[in-house]
């Protein structure tokens, strides 16, 4: 396992917000590596810095200091203009509230991510159908998000995150809005994707989800409290 190259490296990452005149240290000197095909969870109580960490890794926010490397590239040094390219080529996002575009069908919601990557129409269609079929949604492709269950919506979101073959999928509380049965199904699906070689990082406060991942990082007060293989 150890000879695998890290897909994601976090080095001495710190983030300080100003709340009025009082500095809030959301992250302090966080470092860790994620290897290809790992299914890793980051847990911790709210305010422990796990969501901030996710934003930094996803180039959705800038750190105060430290670096994030994805596929050996220091993304925290990337120019503002390069961020979209890195996001669509290296990272797939899965959000708590699914965040599908309500006016588009399941198929179009997967398709749109590839549009921004300028994938040809034919290839987009092929890939969308392939992914949705893999997610067990072959009969629901023409449905709008409002016509899909929470579990189905999240599977569409996962298919969308996968569409551009990202180096890593960052999932923010992916089971936060679904019942336990659906939760188990989603976690099983993510695990299956990892077994096929996809690297997935899940931020969650649900210990039942964290227990099913192969590695668990626990955050407390902006620092790593523990990092355990399980």
């Amino acid at each position, binding site marked *: 396992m150890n000879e695998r190259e890290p897909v994601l490296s976090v080095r001495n990452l710190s983030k300080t917000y100003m709340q009025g005149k009082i500095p809030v240290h959301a992250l302090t000197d966080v470092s860790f590596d994620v290897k290809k095909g790992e299914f890793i969870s980051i847990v911790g109580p709210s305010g422990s810095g796990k969501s901030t960490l996710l934003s930094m890794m996803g180039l959705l926010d800038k750190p105060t200091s430290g670096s994030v490397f994805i596929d050996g590239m220091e993304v925290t040094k990337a120019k503002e203009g390069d961020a979209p*390219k890195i996001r669509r080529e290296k990272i797939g*996002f899965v959000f708590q509230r699914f*965040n599908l575009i309500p006016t588009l069908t399941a198929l179009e919601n997967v398709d*749109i991510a590839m549009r921004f990557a300028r994938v040809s129409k034919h290839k987009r269609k092929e890939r969308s159908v392939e992914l949705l079929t893999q997610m067990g949604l072959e009969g629901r492709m023409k449905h709008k998000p409002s016509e899909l269950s929470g579990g189905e919506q999240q599977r569409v979101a996962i298919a969308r995150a996968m569409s551009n073959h990202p180096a890593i999928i960052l999932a923010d509380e992916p089971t936060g809005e679904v019942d336990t049965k659906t939760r188990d199904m989603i976690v099983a699906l993510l695990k299956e994707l990892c077994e096929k070689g996809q690297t997935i990082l899940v931020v969650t406060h649900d210990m039942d989800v964290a227990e099913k991942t192969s590695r668990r990082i626990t955050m407390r007060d902006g620092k790593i409290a523990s990092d355990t293989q399980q």
Partner: protein
Amino acid sequence: MLDLIIRSITQRKLRTGLTMFGIGLGIFAVMVMGGMSEYFTLHVDRGLSLMADKIHVLPESGFFGGSLDDSKARKVKSIPGVLDAYGLLWMPYDVESLGFFGNFVVGLEPEKQAATLKDIKLTEGRLLVPGDGYRTVIGSNVARQLKLHTGDEIEVKSKQFVRASTITHSRNFTVVGIMEFTGTDFDYIIGVPLDTARKFYDMEDTLTYIWVIPEPDVDADDLAKRIELNVENVATFSPNQLRKQIEQSMVVVSLITLSSAVLAAIIGGLSIMNTMLMSVSERTKEFGLMKAMGAEIRDILYLTVGEAALMGILGGVLGIAGGAVFIYYMNEYLASMGAVIFAITPRLVVIALLFATLLGIMSGSIPAYRAARMKPMEAMRRE
């Protein structure tokens, strides 16, 4: 991406409809006002080409106040530099009207028709010939308004003041020719032989205008001044003065058109901006999400500006269609009343559509900029 824009527009039918109606209304105003301006421009250009080669001589005290007579015409003709000078009697067709608008009975010497009407063609019949008594050549609007063809009769009335009362005479004139549409005053004339007109109106020696054709190589402005100096109690309009006067009145028309366009821009622009601001703030999360998925700023700009531009174009088409229909029926109606005042030219349609599109793009760009600048994380956190 165009399909996404169309999706977004059609998804919000009522709002899109209302916005398009707003722009449509603005463009409608541009079409109607522009149509009027276009008509006047055509009218003036043609009118200038028809009339502005002559010096117009009128009585000093005004159009209908003073009088000119044959001796004055002869005097004008004798001035060096004058190639030809001839008189016209210009009377309102409707004796009750003030005589500034509407149709006119014009008495002219048949021999001078070629010089007066220049290259105006006839759609029916023939010109007047010497010896034609109660016969007439009419303008296209007269024919349209009164539904006349060659061979038909037109009743003309004259009013004469005898002591304290008035006597109204009426005579039928036979239509022998109908002129083509020119967009000028000639569309409103009932041309009759000068001698017949004078007899009918009991104005044996009177003339309304004297039209002067200068000799080639003679400066018309100088000649006009010489006429004023040599002939008593006359005022002249040289071609340049005529042109200037017309151009001045065109400035007013242009101002009306311009202000209507500005008004349209404000109405249409605000309605697009309002709709787009609403649409953008409603979709804040969507744009944040798109950015998280790796959308470039130009992708978001394309989607939002494109939506605004498309609404502008659709509204523009609506306004142009509405304006065209309005102008068509208005012209039909006005023609039956005796006056056409609108013209739709290809130039006007192109300008109206470009205007609508630009309006869409410009008023869409502020909301679009807002959408594109959104930080993905902030956008996502909004509920």
